[in-house]
C-alpha cells in the first residue's frame, strides 16, 4: 500500500523542497512532481492537443528539470522555472513536428501561480484521492485502472484476471465508491 505524503503548499515550503531535491532527496523531488503535475499536464495538453503527447512532454520536462535542478537558484521559485522549461520543450516538439501553434501564452493561465485557489483545491482533492487509491486492494486498483484508464470492458477484465464479470463489476463498484467520495468536493464545485 502506498502512503500518500502530505506536502505543505506555501512558497517557503516549496523553496525548502527544492533545496532538498537539489541535495538529492528523492522524496522532495517526488513531492514537487505531485504538486506540479496537474497544472503541467493541463498546460502540455493545451499546447500539444493530444493527451498521450502531453504526458510524454510532462515526463520529459520533469526529468530535464531533475537534471538541471542544481542550476536553479535556491531563492527562485520552482513553478515558473519549470513551466518555462516545459513550454520550451513543447515548442521545440511542435517545431519538430512542423505544427503551427498560436497560443503559447495560455500556459501562464494554467500555472499554479496564475490560479492559486484552483491549484490549492486541486492539491487537496488530489491528496484525498491518493489516500482513497492507496486504500484499495491491489486487485481493485488493477480493475479500476483497466476499466477507467485502459478502457477495457468488464468481461475482458474478467477473462484477464480469471474472475466472473459480475465479480469484476462488484470490485469496480467498491473501488469507485471510495474514489468518488474523494472527488466529491470537485464535483460539488462543478455543480455550483
Amino acid at each position, binding site marked *: 500500500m502506498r502512503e500518500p505524503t502530505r506536502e505543505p503548499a506555501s512558497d517557503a515550503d516549496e523553496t525548502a523542497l527544492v533545496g532538498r531535491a537539489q541535495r538529492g532527496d528523492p522524496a522532495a523531488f517526488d513531492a514537487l512532481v505531485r504538486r506540479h503535475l496537474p497544472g503541467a499536464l493541463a498546460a502540455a495538453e493545451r499546447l500539444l492537443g493530444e493527451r498521450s503527447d502531453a504526458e510524454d512532454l510532462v515526463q520529459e520536462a520533469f526529468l530535464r528539470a531533475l537534471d538541471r535542478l542544481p542550476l536553479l537558484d535556491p531563492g527562485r521559485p520552482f513553478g515558473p522555472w519549470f513551466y518555462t522549461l516545459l513550454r520550451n520543450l513543447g515548442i521545440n516538439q511542435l517545431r519538430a513536428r512542423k505544427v503551427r501553434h498560436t497560443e503559447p501564452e495560455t500556459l501562464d493561465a494554467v500555472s499554479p501561480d496564475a490560479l492559486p485557489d484552483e491549484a490549492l483545491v486541486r492539491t487537496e482533492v488530489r491528496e484525498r484521492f491518493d489516500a482513497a487509491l492507496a486504500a484499495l486492494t491491489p486487485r481493485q486498483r488493477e480493475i479500476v485502472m483497466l476499466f477507467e484508464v485502459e478502457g477495457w470492458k468488464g468481461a475482458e477484465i474478467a477473462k484477464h484476471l480469471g474472475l466472473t464479470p459480475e465479480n469484476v463489476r462488484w470490485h*469496480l463498484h467498491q473501488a469507485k465508491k471510495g474514489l468518488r467520495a474523494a472527488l466529491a468536493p470537485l464535483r460539488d464545485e462543478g455543480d455550483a
Partner: protein
Amino acid sequence: MTDELFDPTDEFLAKDPDRDPALGALLREDRLRERIVVAARRRRLRRVDTPWYGWVARYGRAAVPIGIAAALIAAVILNRSPRADAEFAAQAATDLQGAVASGSRTDVTDALVGPDSTEFLIAMAVDR
C-alpha cells in the same frame, strides 16, 4: 472497501457501469506520476552507478575528435623538438670552438662539462 457482500444476482452487476471521465483523468495522472518518479529514480541510479564502459558509450563520440586534436598538438610539439636540439648542439659546438681558440684550459673544460660555479648562469643571462 468490503462493507457490501458480493451477490451476483444484484441488478447493478448485470452490465458494466458508465465510465467516469473525472475519475479516469485522475487515475491517468496518478499513473503518469508513478512513471515519472520511477524514471527519475532510474536516472539517479544511473548517474551514481555508471561503469567505465557507460562513460565510454556516453562520451565515445566526443573522445574521437578530442583524441585527434591531442594527436595534432603532440605532433606539433614533437616536430619542434629536433630543431631545438639541433640549435642547442650548434651553439655548444660554437662555444667549444671559441674556447679552443682562446687557448684557455678552463674555457675548454667549461665548454665541455660546464663551469664549477653558477656565475656562468648570470653571465649567460646578462649576455642574452
